[in-house]
């Protein structure tokens, strides 16, 4: 179980990275206009 001594700090670092990614997403407006992006793929151009 010694691997936990590595995995737990790693999980902390991982969460911090996810937080950074979320910060970017929120402040770039990625959560606004949620429907439009999904239908972009149906566009015929």
């Amino acid at each position, binding site marked *: 179980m010694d691997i936990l001594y590595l995995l737990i*700090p790693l*999980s902390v670092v991982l969460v911090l990275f*996810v*937080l950074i990614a979320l910060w970017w997403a929120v402040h770039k407006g990625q959560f606004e*206009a949620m429907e439009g992006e999904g239908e972009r793929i149906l*566009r015929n151009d």
Partner: protein
Amino acid sequence: MNAAYALLDDPQSWAAFSKPFNSVPSPDAASSATWESQVVVQGMHCAACALNVEAALCSVPGVKQATVNGATHRAQITWSAHEVRPSQWLDALSRAGYQAVPANDFVSRQAGQAQVRQQLWRWLVAGLCMMQVMMYAWPVYVAEPGDIAPNMLSLLKWASWVLTLPVMFFATDVFTKAAWRDLKHGRISMDLPVALGIWVTFIVSSAAVFDPDGLLGGEVYFDSLTMFVFFLLTGRWLETRLRERTAGSLEALINRLPQSVQRQTKQGGLETVALHQLRVGDVLQVHPGEVFAADGELLQGHTWVEEALLTGESAPLERHAGDTLMAGSHNLRETIHMKVLRLGEHTRYADIVRLMQSASLHKPRLAALADSVAKPFLAAVLLAAGLSAALAWSTSPGHALMVAVSVLIVTCPCALSLATPAAMLAAAGRLARQGVLLRNVQSLEGLAQVDAVVFDKTGTLTEDRMVLQTLITPQGVWHLNDAASPLPSAVLKLAASLARHSVHPFSRAVAQLWPQTEDCLPMQAVQEEVGQGVSGRVVNDQGQAVRELRLGALAFCQSGQAPCLVPLKALTAQVHLCDDNGWLASFEFLERLRDDAVQSLQALQDQGLKLFLLSGDTAAAVDRIANRLQWPQAQVQARCSPEGKLQFVKNLQAQGLHVAMVGDGFNDMPVLAGAHVSFAFGEAVPLAQARSDVVVQGHHLMAVADTLALAQRTQTVVRHNLIWAATYNAVCVPLAFMGYLPPWLAGLGMALSSLVVVLYSLQLARPPRTNTLATQKG
């Protein structure tokens, strides 16, 4: 090219809907090469439309990026000022079939958007960290003592501590800042116990991480802390969303007027000018689908308009030449020409916006009231928390502090303070969508207590508009029905010249008989005696005042200097005209009962209300109406002066009745002010002057019954809310005090209790399913 768009090519106008697109803000914004603009796109129905709009915009060379939000119908365009002008991409948009108007509230909306993003960010931080902290806490909960090695335990505590830091820095700042701001101003608010609870928990748990053998013990509460913050933020997030839904119609109303209009030049051509360049008297061309920029008169043609947001009347209305058009309403069918009568501040649209803004300004006062009640309560909460900590201190100081935290959080009177405003705002929002404006949200309380309704007749039970039935002059009698003989123009011109100075329904009817306002005779010393009549002196070509004219009730005309002998056959007519030499004419008008008068009175009676009818009109005219409505004789009074009406209402109040007065807002000022609550009713109420509590726009009398019924339902909802909030606190406080309630559960309870209050209040915001809502009393 659309000429309106050409105006937008002037760099001076860009700042209104754009901002320079630079990562570093340049001091000279106008010289910026790249701009970011926002426009509101009309005619968008679905997400596919959003993609079409984007494609159309991106096809223009020089447009670097275009993103469209399908929900808000807004497009954000990044473009290079060296390569392209706004008119070019706006044109591309109209070729694709979409009209766009610049979003002039761009800057203020950006501030709002930043706030929404910040709120979302806080919520995500709290949520993510809560989940991970819970992962570290879980093994400790399920393992037998001794199963986990001590250094593994301390590693888990450290990991939890690290992931609680973002929550403390990014998510809880909203509580801490608010509590600190209030403390600095010597106030205690609901954020204080929350902030205190958060920080006490954090300090106790941090002490356990760094010094497990210290005074506060080795127990950590990071899972409770993060969960509590997450629940609280979730509650706030949902609350904001719900509130936006109930009070959102104001924004739709404010952003209505077009920024540029087409004006007719002297040569008969058309020019496109900005709204602020318009002057009263200008002639505008308005296309179908456009919004009228000013109050005015339809000059020629015939069209249909939609005034839903202004009057609550959702059906299209027909407008003929000579009819009034309202700023902010939509032209639906034909291209028409209108003459501008009132602009900007003076339009009815501006009045409505002002009224709605002032009604929403009353909100802080309501919140302040809640805060003042909360103050002694909060002091008691702090005391109780301290006491509970002191009692448990001897067994374990760390545990004692956590009990105190639970007490702090669970007693927070959020639900209690939301109980009243949440319900009232929901009700006021719904009324506003139906064209019923409350001057002040609190008047809903007064409305709920009403047990007698006093109606004025003219303009209330009957329509504002009068139809001329008979005209009697010394030369003869004219009937409306025989169109063969034209009405005598000289006497009409005299009467209309005087009548147009008054807004009384009779005066307006007389004034309409002579539509050529430009060749009306100039008048001097015009005086109106409320409810009686209007007098003035005709000015001749030399500018001297010559003959005095009096127009009004019989008694008013006879009170002039000259004897006014009205022939017997004209005595029953409503309006008489006389001058220094005596009687000139009598006008007899026919009133039209409102379409829904019978139905509304029935609905009011079903609500158990006593109904009274007061009128300044003759007994015969009032009886005619009363008979058609089957009104009991005892509750009808004719020939009331304004003072008489006030006296009548005072007598009712002396009998212990709560009286609502429904009047047209012109002649009933004293009695409207004297009643407990008052409705100003009718299409032409001068909003700025109306001192009534409720302004009913449009012409549905049913709105009175609906408003009273909704006020009663609001009262019921408020009562339920208060009972629920008080019960919640009464049950949870003893539990927390005895230590049965961990902080996370306290937080969940607090967030849920507030949400229940808001959700329960939302039933008031739903529009009525049928027109007979008023009959389902409740």
